[in-house]
């Protein structure tokens, strides 16, 4: 391979590579910035909105510390379906909007708060635990 060829190949790979890496990562900046915009909008909505957000931020650590409780989770799925529909519409809209963004066209969407999940364990285990509790009663 001649030096000329080597230079062409290297230049080509380098150019395309750098362009694509920057293209992908800057397009992710766009998407993530939109998050941030709505995050800020959300936090401007008033005190209640802000508190909700804080609760969400603490969420992960709280969940890790908490040993999920079988009694609590017994009826949890039923509760979930009783929930207000606003939340549901919120998250579904957000995910759909995310796809839209990914596909190239941006449309407005509204992020509402996410419910905290209590169940950290599997349904299989819970059954065993429930039963264990039941036999102890």
């Amino acid at each position, binding site marked *: 391979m001649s030096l000329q060829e080597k230079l062409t190949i290297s230049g*080509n790979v380098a150019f395309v590579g750098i362009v694509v890496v920057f293209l992908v990562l800057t397009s992710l900046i766009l998407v993530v910035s939109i998050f941030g915009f709505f995050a800020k909008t959300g936090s401007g909505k008033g005190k209640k909105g802000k508190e909700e957000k804080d609760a969400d931020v603490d969420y992960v650590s709280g969940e890790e510390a908490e040993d999920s409780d079988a009694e609590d989770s017994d009826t*949890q799925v039923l509760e979930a*379906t009783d929930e207000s529909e606003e939340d549901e519409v919120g998250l579904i809209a957000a995910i*759909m909007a995310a*796809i839209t963004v990914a596909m190239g066209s941006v449309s407005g969407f509204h992020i509402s708060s996410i419910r905290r999940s209590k169940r950290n364990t599997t349904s299989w285990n819970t059954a065993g635990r429930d039963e264990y509790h039941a036999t102890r009663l």
Partner: protein
Amino acid sequence: MWNVFVDSIIGLAKKSGFSNLTPLHLVMIAISCFFIFLAIKYKFEPLLLLPIAFGMLLANLPLGNLMHPVIWDNIHDLQFADLFNSDKFGLLDILYLGVKLGVYPPLIFLGVGAMTDFGPLIANPKSLILGAAAQIGIFFTFFGAMMLGFTQQEAGAIAIIGGADGPTAIFTTTKLAPHLLGPIALAAYSYMALVPVIQPPIMKLMTTKKERCIVMEQLRPVSRLEKILFPIIVAVVVSLVVPDATPLVGMLMLGNLFRESGVVARLSETSQNALINIITLFLGVSVGATASADKLAQPGYGAQAFKIIILGMFAFAICTATGVLFGKILNVISGGKVNPLIGSAGVSAVPMAARVSQKVGQEANPGNFLLMHAMGPNVAGVIGSAVAAGVLISMLGGK
């Protein structure tokens, strides 16, 4: 020189997924995101549905080449060296091998067995009748699927959704109608998650307030010896009568023997943690990946998927109804000692269906604790579904 760069960029753009994206891909991606949403927001069986939906998402990003559904249509032509050909085997194809070889569902059952306490069933063996009764809907659904134009094999795979047991449904579908694996798995797990919505109206419709108020006797204690003998005997009896159920029932019972023997705590622990988690993950993501846009492009596939959704709902409803019906019969025979609500727990969907029995019973009579009594039919339903699966595979499996 500049031309070379521009050509390269154009070449790369052509090789990018965007330029190969079709509306069908978008539909599939939207469906994936919808199931991710259900799994996270409403905890619809997230352990399976989240990997399944993400696998479906990845498989529908064009040119990702993670899954090649076409190779699985002609498995008998596959050569060992094809494994190394990335045009034939992608990452998810390799993980899918465990599904296709029928290895993952039995290993999941091993872990389920190690997690399951058959004590309530042993204490109240009549539960087994309810575990059988709640499989009747499977065969009604088979009939319905045949009427809606599915082949025998497809009808068998769809019917097993009514078994309300994910690994059993996947195992059966892999044997009978692997091309429908994606929609059937999605339907099975979704309806299992919807048990608390589907069952209560049917249960209330079929029972009187008086029946729902029946308080059942406390269960007798079960000795360790009984718990050790149970898995051995069930494995032998079921395998002898329905050999095709052996992989599922045999592993379920091995896991349970690990649990009850008390001498292999290490194996029991690993079966119900590291092993079942790894297998669940591999199974979920690769089963999801079978639902590719190419399939949706086949004429009639969308209609089939729609019919599967209808039939799955139908199957759950009938299974619940027959379970409750036999609960009522047992109640009459026993002279009013059996609360018919425990019958609906026979559909499997452990432990959700038993919790539904508990909840509906407590609504009628706040002092009524049916959970333990419903666990009997609930775990019996797992055995019942596996037997039904064995019968379907035996009668319909070409080979």
